[in-house]
């Protein structure tokens, strides 16, 4: 007996909710970065426009300021990307935990000795249709999650 883990993740109701939450969070983070970049580009444009009117000292100071700001934006961008990756990792692990818990519970209640998890990695190359529990497990998993 086996289940297709990818199909379970894809079809699980919580995946859709978690993904929507994640996308909402990342959209906010991305828009913050975009605003910072847009402001910096504006400053750069102004600098290029007015550079002929600056003294050598002013020019150096302005360049340093713009350089520092660019560096800060890059660090912020990296931090945001890292945070997004971490959130994604946490979310995926939560979904996998839920599926593992449910498959365990399902196997126990149905009296199966073993349920394999096919994940496209080649661990199950062929399985007769009657051995595929994915549909049944997915229905149960969603029924439990959607219970209200």
């Amino acid at each position, binding site marked *: 007996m086996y289940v297709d883990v990818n199909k379970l993740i894809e079809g699980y109701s919580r995946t859709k909710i978690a993904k929507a939450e994640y996308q909402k969070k990342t959209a906010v983070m991305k828009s913050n970065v975009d605003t910072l970049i847009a402001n910096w580009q504006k400053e750069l444009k102004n600098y290029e426009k007015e550079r002929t009117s600056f003294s050598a000292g002013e020019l150096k100071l302005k360049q340093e300021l713009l350089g520092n700001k660019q560096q800060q934006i890059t660090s912020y961008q990296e931090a945001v990307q890292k945070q997004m990756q971490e959130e994604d990792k*946490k979310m995926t*692990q939560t979904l996998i935990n839920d599926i593992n*818990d449910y498959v365990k519970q399902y196997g126990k209640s149905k009296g199966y000795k073993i349920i394999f998890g096919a994940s496209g990695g080649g661990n199950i190359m062929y399985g007769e249709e009657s051995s595929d529990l994915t549909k049944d497990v997915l229905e149960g998993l969603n029924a*439990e999650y959607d219970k209200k």
Partner: protein
Amino acid sequence: MIKSSLFLCLLSVLLVSCNKTFDKPQEMAEFIADPDNGYCYTKKAGGVDYTLQYRPTDLLVEQEIGQNPKPGTIEQTRKKYEKYLYFNLSMAMNKKELLNNLAADKERFGQMLSELSFGMDQKIHLYTATKDTIAMSDFSYPRMFGISDATTILVAYPRDEKYMNEKYMDFTIEDLGLYTGEIKFRIDMSKLRTEPQLRFK
């Protein structure tokens, strides 16, 4: 024949639903710690060992008044503790407290310390099968400064008859930044309804 088998059946139902009693708290603690008895749940995720253990009322009563209490104090203390459901949640990484594993990272250490001390009511949830969340009454995180082999938190929830008759309740712990994902323990409520008791002298 039918009568005797009916009697046997009734007797077995009664025996199963009766509360188990113990003379010594150590015996009860050992019984509780055995996952087969339905009061202790364990799980491993992302290198973190989670153990959730229910703390029966009498174990807490004994802790406060001892084995030979003054007359009247048992019921009085039982009344005080039976208003809540107490759970011990232990989390260990490499058989050490969680904070020990983050000692090299100042920022994460500080973050986790503040979460364990003040934010666990936002990270731990208890809810019914129909997703009714029960608000946590309180939690306590005694900092052990590395001398313990796990981070242990005592969590209390109100013992409300409304959900005591549920088949099960889900106890979840959000990811604490260790990439474990959310951890869920399904608590068999029939075990809590017939929790073990101590025979006080």
